[in-house]
């Protein structure tokens, strides 16, 4: 993809959503699906094209923890903190993962391998507590097993 086509991307997205209610979120959604995160450059262009202050865009971007501001790691580890998962021990799982990876929610390991995030209820409370690694759903987790799964991916990468 050439540089100019990236520029045009934002224009196309802005055009698609301009004049639609709630359009800012949809446009940001599009940007994130395209890049895996919302690059600052694109956010600034979008601000211009949609005539929305950049400050407002970042208010939205940081309000929903769905949006990412940095390129995500190769493996995205999501810990659900919805009520059910929370009550069934999600904080402990989160704690051990942060210790193991050395990063907090919203951060990516320096080698770019893992991105950790806390998510709100993902709609499978019956399986609580739930962790997902990329598309893989890990049900009825505990701290030890969750870390174990991460280790397996690490080893896989080393092989």
């Amino acid at each position, binding site marked *: 993809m050439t540089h100019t086509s990236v520029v045009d991307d934002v224009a196309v997205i802005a055009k698609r959503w301009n004049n639609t209610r709630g359009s800012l979120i949809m446009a940001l959604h599009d940007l994130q699906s395209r890049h895996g995160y919302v690059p600052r450059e694109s956010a600034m262009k979008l*601000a211009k094209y949609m005539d929305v202050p*950049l400050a*407002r865009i970042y*208010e939205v*971007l940081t309000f929903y923890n769905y949006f990412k501001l940095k390129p995500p790691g190769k493996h995205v580890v999501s810990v659900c903190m919805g009520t059910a998962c929370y009550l069934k021990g999600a904080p402990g799982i989160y704690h051990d993962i942060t210790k193991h990876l050395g990063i907090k929610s919203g951060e990516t390991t320096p080698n770019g391998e893992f991105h950790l995030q806390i998510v709100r209820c993902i709609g499978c409370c019956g399986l609580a507590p739930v962790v997902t690694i990329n598309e893989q759903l890990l049900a009825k987790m505990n701290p030890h097993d969750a870390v174990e799964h991460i280790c397996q991916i690490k080893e896989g990468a080393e092989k």
Partner: protein
Amino acid sequence: MIHHSLEPPERTVNMVNAIINGVPVQVEQGTTILDAGHKVHVKIPTLCKHPDLDATAACGICIVRIKNTPKMLRACCTPIEDGMDITTEDPEIIQVRRSVLELILSKHPNQCLTCGRNQNCELQTLAADFNLVWDGLDNIVPQLPTDTSTLSIKLDPKKCITCGRCIQVCQEIQNVWALSFLQRGIETRIAPAGDINLADSPCVRCGQCSAHCPTGAIVEYDETEAVWSKLLDPHAYCVAQIAPAVRVAIGEAFGFEPGTNLTGKIYAALRRMGFKAVFDTNFGADLTIVEEASEFVERFTKGKSVLPLITSCCPAWVDFMEKFHGDMIPHFSTCKSPHAMVGALAKTYYAQKMKLNPAKIFMVSIMPCTAKKFEICRSKEMQASGFQDVDVSLTTRELARMIKQSGIDFITVPDDQPDHILGAYTGAGTIFGATGGVMEAALRTAYNLITGSNPPRFEFEVVRGLQGVKEGEINIVGTKVRVAVAHGLGNVEYVINKVREAKDKGAEMPYHFIEVMACPGGCVGGGGQPYGVTDVLRKARAKGLYHEDGSGLWRCSHQNPYVQQLYADFLEKPLSHKSESLLHTGYTNRPAYQK
């Protein structure tokens, strides 16, 4: 407080009757319970609500009880209804208020003793009033870095109580959009878009966020230490100057009535602190007017360059213009702000007269303003004397603290005089501190330049007062001069867009002369003035300035004999080569993101 419309809309007033704490009250329909309370001497505590701003109902401390309803309501945003029976204080209400405060304190640093708002903090006052004790509070303070990148204000988000006042001011009143809330819930914090430094944001350093913050989360960037150390340095020749708006506001820090003019006491205090010469920025204001009115008349009568001429003495406005209205640069007066002129002259004219080495002169400006802290090094023109013309710019708040530290009994200290060579001034210089003042002063002198005599009436009422945009047509012996005055940066767009539209259409310009001040009310409402500003204070401070103007001998800047002497001995004439090099500056388009 900010109005774009020039005529208040016609409306019929309906009155409602209610009872507050057993006392009957009659108010206009739409009045909030909070304001109705004031009418019957009831003070309902507030924290997020500021009189300048619309209620956001963020904090919940202002809850009151209405008879026969189960819910408690927020007084700041609830209009009173006919027949309401309101209780503002009972044990349960007080308990709720205490809980609100406890929640805030549970994530607030316990640092009052070393805080910029110590003894002057709305949160601290409420904590004291409600007798909060720290025992048992599990205090978790978020670890957030302090931002001093602007060198004008200090952002300490740890002390933020997320009331949103600063954001409202920055976005709605100033239309800058530097500050916003990021994240949500317990993680909510104030920051520029995407956690960059404030200096890299569109911030124009007006300091209005600091003037409206109830806590120490945003305060001026304190530079008093640098000044004290120079005052103690035997090789330094420290000189000071005070801005128009400082004299009518500093008294608030010492218990004087708002608007009390304390010029003589400030001179005295500065001399006692060790300043070897004390100048007055009002002198610089007079000089600015002589230069600017000459610039105006040149453009107006000889068709030189473009009209409207736009004033340039407010550095936050200059910054805003360079960032968002770069196409207006040709319209800008090239005059520096008054204190910058005095700075340049102190290290040239004054140094020569007094046979001083200008390298030793240390110039301190006392300003109502945080933006001037940055202005003094904004471009190479700020070193016109060959040195940095103004070395430090302090706010009124910083000077008040220095006076308190120096053991001067400010209340009783007798008046002193300035060093007249750069300190004598006229009433026209004084009114620079209020919105419309620069325009009025310029009109007085322009009248003289065009007709050869002074105006029959010195007062130009049409440019006075707190209306957000003031427009008028001044008749100078048959010549119509159309003027506009805007204050509060959010009001600028209306005026600038009218100019732009006329330009695009090739139509006649809507104005000949435009004054803009970034802060609501002008410098009297500056971001570095004593805390707690409201329209009541803005009016009182402005009144102090207009009173001095009205009772003085000289009402026009060109009458200032020391300005005349300056031209005779040094500058030759307005807009001379020397004036241009010392007193004028240039502008650069520096587009910043906003939208």
